[in-house]
């Protein structure tokens, strides 16, 4: 397939792995302990697991899977709000597919649908707008979530709704922002990440500049990275090269898509519709200042939070859940107390088990089968001892 296979060439991968190996040896010699690289974005996590990249890397390089899966980090309370909206008689609740399964404290959207709520899966916010056009007697709410990548499309959709005078269309805004979240990770106690793969599609919108503080204030190399497996390998090589040469910069591996200054038209649309919230609640990470956006007052007629009563209850993460520590790289997914036992993709307790992009689900589904089995045997042995 054109424009795809070029970025998955196994020969080029081999070459890159060799170069990564040589650089890693050099860097490891300079510093002792392992090199910990965090990919922030869930899309990167997906690629890493789908192509088995972690297993191809030389020893001493650890990949830490960050919080960049917007579905995973959605707190239970927000899912409850979605369900409450979806259960309103007049509402058609529209959402991207993978948000359907996220458990709330009562139920997921998938369960709400089974119970009779009108929940529909769409492929784009424009599909939701089309539904509003076709159903003038219903209220169509689109579940707007995602980082800066998806913000322009939802912003442009409400702008279109206003132009056409479609009053029965609104957004339930749960968009979150990348930069404050990376900062929260960098500020967290015990943070041990050496360098970052920055999200490619977020950068396509916001550009390179917002990541400068990671290199300049926190002394961590950072490379904006594409989503094909060769992109990931090349970025890892670029990070190691910075480390080997003692440099610390923002570099752009994904130059074929990311303009240094971002996308001015997209940024303008975002600024017109959205404003920063004082704080936003994250599953696993807790409340992070300025990490979400809401719709500006001028868009009240298309803002589900203003149009409908929202329960807005805070539901605490389960106590046994160690998602926060996994997200910050303090522990590996399978080192969590409940991984593979109480917390599985069928019955996710924590954020990271929820979507296939979450680090724990990815380990469980794609790679961690042995860890899962060991864990289950261990748990069985412990229960055995307990009852003996």
């Amino acid at each position: 397939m054109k424009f795809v296979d070029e970025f998955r060439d196994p020969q080029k991968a081999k070459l890159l792995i060799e170069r990564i190996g040589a650089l890693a040896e050099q860097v490891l010699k300079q510093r002792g302990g392992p090199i910990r690289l965090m990919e922030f974005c869930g899309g990167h996590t997906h690629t890493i697991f789908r192509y088995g990249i972690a297993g191809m890397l030389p020893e001493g390089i650890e990949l830490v899977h960050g919080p960049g899966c917007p579905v995973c980090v959605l707190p239970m309370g927000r899912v409850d709000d979605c369900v409450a909206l979806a259960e309103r008689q007049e509402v058609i609740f529209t959402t991207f597919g993978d948000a359907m399964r996220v458990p709330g404290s009562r139920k997921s959207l998938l369960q709400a649908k089974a119970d009779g709520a009108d929940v529909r899966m769409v492929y784009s916010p424009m599909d939701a707008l089309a539904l509003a056009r076709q159903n003038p007697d219903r209220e169509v709410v689109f579940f707007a979530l995602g980082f800066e990548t998806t913000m322009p499309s939802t912003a442009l959709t409400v702008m279109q709704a206003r132009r056409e005078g479609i009053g029965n269309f609104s957004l339930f805004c749960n968009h979150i922002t990348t930069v404050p979240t990376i900062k929260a990770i960098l500020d967290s106690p015990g943070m041990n990440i050496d360098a970052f793969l920055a999200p490619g599609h977020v950068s396509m919108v916001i550009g390179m500049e917002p990541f400068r503080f990671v290199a300049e204030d926190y002394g961590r190399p950072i490379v904006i990275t594409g989503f094909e497996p060769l992109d990931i390998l090349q970025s890892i090589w670029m990070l190691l090269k910075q480390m080997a040469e003692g440099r610390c910069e923002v570099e752009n591996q994904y130059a074929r898509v990311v303009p240094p200054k971002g996308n001015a038209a997209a940024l303008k649309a975002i600024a017109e519709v959205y404003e920063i919230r004082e704080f936003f609640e994250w599953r696993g990470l807790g409340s992070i200042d300025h990490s979400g956006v809401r719709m500006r007052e001028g868009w009240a007629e298309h803002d589900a939070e203003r149009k409908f009563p929202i329960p807005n209850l805070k539901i605490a993460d389960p106590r046994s859940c160690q998602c926060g520590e996994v997200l910050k790289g303090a522990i590996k997914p399978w080192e969590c107390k409940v991984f593979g036992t109480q917390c599985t993709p069928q019955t996710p307790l924590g954020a990271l088990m929820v979507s296939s992009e979450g680090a724990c689900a990815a380990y469980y589904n794609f790679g961690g089968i042995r860890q899962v089995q060991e864990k289950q045997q261990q748990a069985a042995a412990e229960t055995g001892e307990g009852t003996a």
Partner: protein
Amino acid sequence: MSADHAEHNGNGGAAASAATAAASPGGVAAGSDGLVRQPPKRTITLAHGSGGKAMQDLIRDVFVAGFDNPLLGALEDQARVELAELLQRGDRLAFTTDSYVVDPLFFPGGDIGKLAVSGTVNDLAVGGARPLFLSCGMIMEEGLPIDELQKVVESMRATAQQAGVAIVTGDTKVVHKGAADKLFINTAGIGVIPAGVDIRAERAQPGDVIIVNGFIGDHGAAIVDARGELALQHVIESDCQPLNGLVEAMLETGVDIHCMRDATRGGIATVLNEFASASNTCMRLREEALPLREEVRGMCEILGLDPLYLANEGKLVAVVAAQDADRLLNAMRAHPAGGDAAIIGEVSADPAGTVVLHTAFGGERIIDVLVGEQLPRIC
């Protein structure tokens, strides 16, 4: 089914019994105001499930005429099959059932009728059985156009003929608008397994090879495509087809097929996981060996779906000893349903109970059983 007939059908209508629970009392279509109206002529109404004249006409004109065979035409409450005839063909009876609820009813490469016959025929065939007789239960939603029903019946007839099976007994029900989605079909099937054929999931052994009879994921992709929400440039056709002819050709080689299943819902990933856990071995797939159409791959790229989990309706996965593989492949490729047959991987001992994909990129990953439904990813 016979119980159902005994309960509701005293008039000798072999192929159908009356709609019960959901049909309106008295067997006539009554509006919410209680007034009885003449139903529109060319759609299914509750009257067609009431056990009366309309139902008898429907059974005679659509089903009995369509499926046309003496066992059904006898119009008894059950089909009667000579045991001696069965015993000549093999030493075990294979019996299976499946229900079909696909939306839309018609899609590129097939329709619910073709699916209902092929699916059940295939469930029999992959066990090594020679499929012989099918039943057909139809649940129709009030308002279904009769010409659509006729098209489905004609498609079932043609597919049954292609597969060499007869639809020998049946049942119809009509339910209120909204109580079912247009048309649901259940088919059950009977076949006979020849002596000496022993195909079981637990028989996979380290050293065996894994074979598939052609492109994977076509049906699942065709259904997503046919719903028309993506407006893709290419039309993807379902692979829906009966496989008993192919299986017969495979058995004729005399190769000892260890395991064989048709990979329907859950795709080949699900079948291979079943083999791996039943035989306590590891199924190792090579990504570059997987037959995958460009357009199916393209759709999977767009939606973030994995073709290993996409449904097929005319694909089987077989496990055989390595030394038998070429002989079997040659026979498969000579058959229209196996033209693109290929070896897609090997069986190894460890890690037992798992399916491992060797990615074309050079890595490895575990292919686990699917949790829930595959849902398109957000970004």
